[in-house]
């Protein structure tokens, strides 16, 4: 039995799935380290997360060191 499979590939031969997966990694990682002010944990802990700023505090030193705006 013959089988035909179609894989989406961009014209450079780079699989679209890989590009999409890596683009998600890029945006999520950048947000966590550079910009989160309690947003991610607020999904679980609600308003409290905006007071605790757990991720902001944990990534604080790298946030400054890598040049992201902070305080």
């Amino acid at each position, binding site marked *: 039995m013959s089988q035909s499979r179609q894989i989406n590939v961009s014209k450079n031969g780079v699989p679209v799935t890989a590009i999409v997966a890596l683009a998600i990694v*890029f945006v999520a990682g950048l947000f*966590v380290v550079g910009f989160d002010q309690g947003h991610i944990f607020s999904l679980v802990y609600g308003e409290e997360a905006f007071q605790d700023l757990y991720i902001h505090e944990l990534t604080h030193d790298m946030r400054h060191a890598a040049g992201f705006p902070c305080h």
Partner: protein
Amino acid sequence: MKTFLFILIVIASGAAAGLIHGGLNLIFVEPSLDQAIGIENQHMFASGEEKDTPEFWIKYDGYRTWQKSGQVLAGGILGVSIGALFGIVFALSRNSLPGKTDIKKALVLAGIMWLTIYFIPFLKYPANPPTVGDPETIVLRGILYLVFIAISGFGAFGFYKLSQKLKTKKLVAIVGYAAFIGIAFVVMPENPDKITAPMDLVNNFRIMSAFTVSLYWLSLGVILGSLWHHYKPHKEIIPFN
């Protein structure tokens, strides 16, 4: 292209370069951060928000140790994130990048991306140590910084594509980008915060910060280029029937 291998190489090189970055920051950037946070503590004592007691310092030291471990962890996360962008651009542009080996190609791209999405934005909005930023303006500063990075990155990409389409020399694209980013540099608003910390501390922090970020980009280029060279994820899998 071998999809899984490609993603694995990109993530591994980003994580490795990011952990190097975080480790280097412990040595080169943390002294400035400690100094700046020391100034913040003095402000808190002066305003009566905190008291200069042994209990305060025990709590503070524990907290800073935790934050410094976060420096390395965040280095890994940021490394993977920026590495993912680098991997996408490298895979798409590998055939047109100059250089005979993958390491040279990766280093050329790392240099271009370092310049356009890190160093030029850094010159416009330089990194600041703690005590400098006003919490009220953090969203505005975040938007300005991101917008400028996007303008610079897409600008460089746009001028490259334009020169390809018009079949002009690469130098035309470089001059076009330089003029474009020069205008954006002047037009974009300044960082609204006033610097109240000693300028020596701020300058030292900025030099160290730029130094370790630059080493991150260098490591990323070398590691991704070497892994790519070794595992060749671009080679198609040849099916045998």
